């Protein structure tokens, strides 16, 4: 146990992070900021994994490994997303998501 800190505190932090991420993703127009919002969502999930692992099954490690995986995948995803954003910038001269609507009916 981490001395004195109840599990709820961690969960509240991760929930707040999660909704900040969701709100950022929906509200912000800049693609880079949206990407950062996604990172927030992922990291809030990471916190949950580690915390549940620590508090519920202290002698096992699956949760921690999972969060390591997520960190790795997030890195890969970020590189792909930034490559996409660069291409969008080249094509549109800006990175406002409102202009990315080629897939409209």
């Amino acid at each position, binding site marked *: 146990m981490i001395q004195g800190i109840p599990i709820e505190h961690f969960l509240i932090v991760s929930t707040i992070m999660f909704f900040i991420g969701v709100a950022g993703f929906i509200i912000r127009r800049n693609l880079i900021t949206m990407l950062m919002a996604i990172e927030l969502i992922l990291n809030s999930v990471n916190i949950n994994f580690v915390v549940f692992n620590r508090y519920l099954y202290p002698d096992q490690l699956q949760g921690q490994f999972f969060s390591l995986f997520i960190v790795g995948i997030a890195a890969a995803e970020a590189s792909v997303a930034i490559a996409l954003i660069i291409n969008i910038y080249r094509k549109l001269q800006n990175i406002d998501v409102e202009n*990315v*609507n080629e*897939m409209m009916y």
Partner: protein
Amino acid sequence: MAGYTYTVFILMIPLVIFLITGLMGMKWKPIVSGVIGTAGMGISFVLSLLAAASYFFGGTHGAEGFQTIIPFEITWLRLTESLIIKMGILLDPISVMMLVVVTTVSFMVHLYSLGYMKGEGGFARFYAFLALFTFSMLGLVIATNIFQMYIFWELVGVSSYLLIGFYYQKPSAVAASKKAFIVTRFADLGFLIGILILSFVTGTFDFGKLTSPDGAIFAGAASLSFMGISALTWAMTLIFIGGAGKSAMFPLHIWLPDAMEGPTPVSALIHAATMVVAGIFLVARMFPVIHFQAPASQEIIAFVGGFTSLFAAVIAITQYDIKRVLAFSTLSQLGYMMLALGVSGYGGEEGLGFMASMFHLFTHAMFKALLFLGAGSIIHAVHSNYMYDMGGLRKYLPITHITFLIACLTIAGIPPFSGFFSKDEILVAALNHNKLLFAVEYLVAGLTAFYMFRLYFNVFWGKDRHYHHTPHESPLTMTIPLVFLAVASIFAGFIPFHHLVTSDKMGFDTEMHLAVAIPSVLIGLLGIALAWILYKKESAIPEKLALRWGILYTATYNKFYFDEIYLFVARNIIFKYISRPVAWFDRHIVDGFMVGIAVVTEKISFQIKGMQSGQLQHYAFIFVAGTLALALSMVYFLN
């Protein structure tokens, strides 16, 4: 039981040849496929002779007659505990005899085709199909159960289709192959239903159980009937329809004459000597069942056979295409064999008809293959199928001439050639059973002699035609089979079939029935004499006769308009009243339903497509909102 395992190779060699020439034949020089095929068939042929020699003369003849040996059997499909389909090899007198017939004729045809098909396109394909056919036919004759037989039966049909349509650029060949396939397939439907009824009644496919003469397996079947006719009679009649399709019995005979579009060696192998006797073989295989359980079916078989033999013989008289004359004569001879099975009893002397049928099957395979190969040699020399393009060929084709003459004498039933013996036995069997059928067959014997010698005199005597180039004798690869088959035709009559191939597998003694033999030889000679008078020298008599008989002649020449009748029925009745409404239903109801679904979907999607804004955040918002709504509703409902 051991010691016959090598019979597997008789079957497997053609299959392997089919696979390798079929897959790789394109890459080789054509002749390589031919040589491989011929050599492989040679091995199969020798193995079959070995099997026959050790089976018939090697002490398998016990107190119970010849034993039935199953050297090899595997379970192929186990559908349920009681429904098991096996594949295997069954050796008994008729299947061993058929092994010899099939491999002999097939080997001769392989050898002959080396010369006949030389330089044709698709040489490797031809040999691959020949091997496929041989494999299927061998699998058919050694089948241990009726289902295996049915599988190979269909394979035989397919390879026949492929070979008739060998010249696939020729529309008539394509039409003929389709016709053959459809007609036989139609008959096979009867066969399949017959098998299903039979196995439903008896609970087995196995020939060993089905054909044991005590008939214990049918004990429960007697009470089953449909429309006042017992289930077994239905089953046997339907199975006979399958056999009639393959053996081209009236009224399913229409495909055989057209099948002559295939290359001539194919006609010799498939449509004269082997495949068309599959129907006879089937009836012979099921003979104990037919004889004891379904005597009414046996009557049908006898009369269909008798009628076909007369009908075909009459048509054969008027045809000018030499291959068609031979095709109709095949029909006629097959009718003989069917009739003999139809009039036969079971066991000992009673089983004379069965023995005679198998005997005639054997001798017929030899002399009919010879006739077709001889015809092929003639066609090879003059490049025409028609008699009026031929004449005086005896000077140019001496070997073909002599062997063809032997074959004609054999089929005309002149002693001591083999056809005389087998035909005599059939006539005796018919006489013992039914005087009317005897009279028909007696007449047909005369007709046969007449039309065969009409062909012979027209081709080899008569006036010299104007040929584009001087006809020359065929190469050795073609004449060796002719000579071999001629020798077989002469001496096959002395094989003691009544000790070897009989209905109950026990031998019996038989003697010459002079009271039948002498008149049948006389009518044969009469037919020959008539042909001599009319056709030996060019004369106007045949034309005058044709004119005099007018309508009757035209009707016969057009094969009694059976093709036209079938076409009429198909077009004006089946197409008009069955196919059209069904097509209408398909187009308007079935398709209409599907089109309706598509139209409705399109309408709805047109209405709601505005939701696809293309805005990523719009989608994300809806996604998150939906997730939240689901989560909340779960919280609400689960508590």
